[in-house]
């Protein structure tokens, strides 16, 4: 008998754009994908939650600065504190940094241009709930589309993160001017990750690449394991 589908929520903020693609991708990868409205203070019994891309609250003030105070973000923070899995994609990454769940901050691209193209990434860690289906050093092609994707951390903080193994993905070539070409990071305990590229847009060869499915399927696997462990 197949093990039950893990329940993975996707938060929709006002201005989210990639929530439905994320729901579709997770369902295609055999998760029960659960839409979560930003006003929901309690998450409906989820094993993991995804904060999707877009422009939450118009990205006013700073990207993610307003969404950080959403009831659903508070619920996601509680899930993370409880050991649950939280993945932030693009705007979701910005929100998690503003919320202090992830280190660093996302700034305007160095070029001042919106960058929208496939990029090649290298996987730095393959022992995380988000990367277990990848191999360390593996090259992935996943699209980016952002104007404020320059991940920044001061040099001493970066060195500490690198030593802790919190750098998960790196661009193979300069993409937006981010510190040491970092594309994705995780928290100290490895149950929260954020990345600027969009794995939900790369889950089928028809879309140009299905490398994003490796990341999302890893999340589905880990959420299934967590559901089984808690059952």
């Amino acid at each position, binding site marked *: 008998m197949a093990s039950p589908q893990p329940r993975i929520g996707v938060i929709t903020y006002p201005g989210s754009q990639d929530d439905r693609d994320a729901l579709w991708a997770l369902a295609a990868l055999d998760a029960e994908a659960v839409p979560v409205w930003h006003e929901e203070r309690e998450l409906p019994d989820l094993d993991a939650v995804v904060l999707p891309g877009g422009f939450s609250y118009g990205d006013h*003030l*700073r990207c993610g*600065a307003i969404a950080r*105070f959403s009831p659903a973000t508070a619920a996601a923070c509680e899930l993370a504190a409880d050991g649950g899995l939280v993945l932030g994609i693009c705007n979701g990454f910005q929100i998690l940094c*503003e919320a202090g769940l992830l280190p*660093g*901050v996302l*700034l*305007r*691209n*160095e*070029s*001042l241009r919106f960058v929208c193209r496939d990029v090649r990434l290298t996987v730095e860690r393959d022992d995380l709930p988000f990367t277990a289906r990848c191999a360390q050093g593996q090259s992935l092609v996943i699209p980016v589309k952002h104007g404020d994707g*320059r991940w*920044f*951390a*001061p040099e001493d903080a970066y060195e500490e993160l690198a030593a802790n193994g919190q750098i998960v993905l790196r661009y193979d070539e300069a993409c937006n*001017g981010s510190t040491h070409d970092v594309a994705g990071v995780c928290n100290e305990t490895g149950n929260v990750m954020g990345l600027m590229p969009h794995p939900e847009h790369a889950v089928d060869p028809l879309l140009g690449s299905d490398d994003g499915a490796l990341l999302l399927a890893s999340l589905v696997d880990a959420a299934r394991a967590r559901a089984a462990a808690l059952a």
Partner: protein
Amino acid sequence: MRATVLVRPKSGILDPQGDAVETALEHLGFSVSGARVGKVIDLELDASDPAEAKAEVEKMCEQLLANPLMESYEVEIVG
């Protein structure tokens, strides 16, 4: 009572907007050796005590108006 908050990119942080402004000013013939772009936030407050108002606005800065990783802020209470 009014407060004006100045939010600046911290020194040492690359500010491409400032660089673009500097280049544009140079193209116009101005002599500029540095430009940084921040933002101004004007607030209308119900407070009556300037010191209390300032403390309150500083709390706003720490919680929302500025991100201490990349920005510094200055609060001025006017009238």
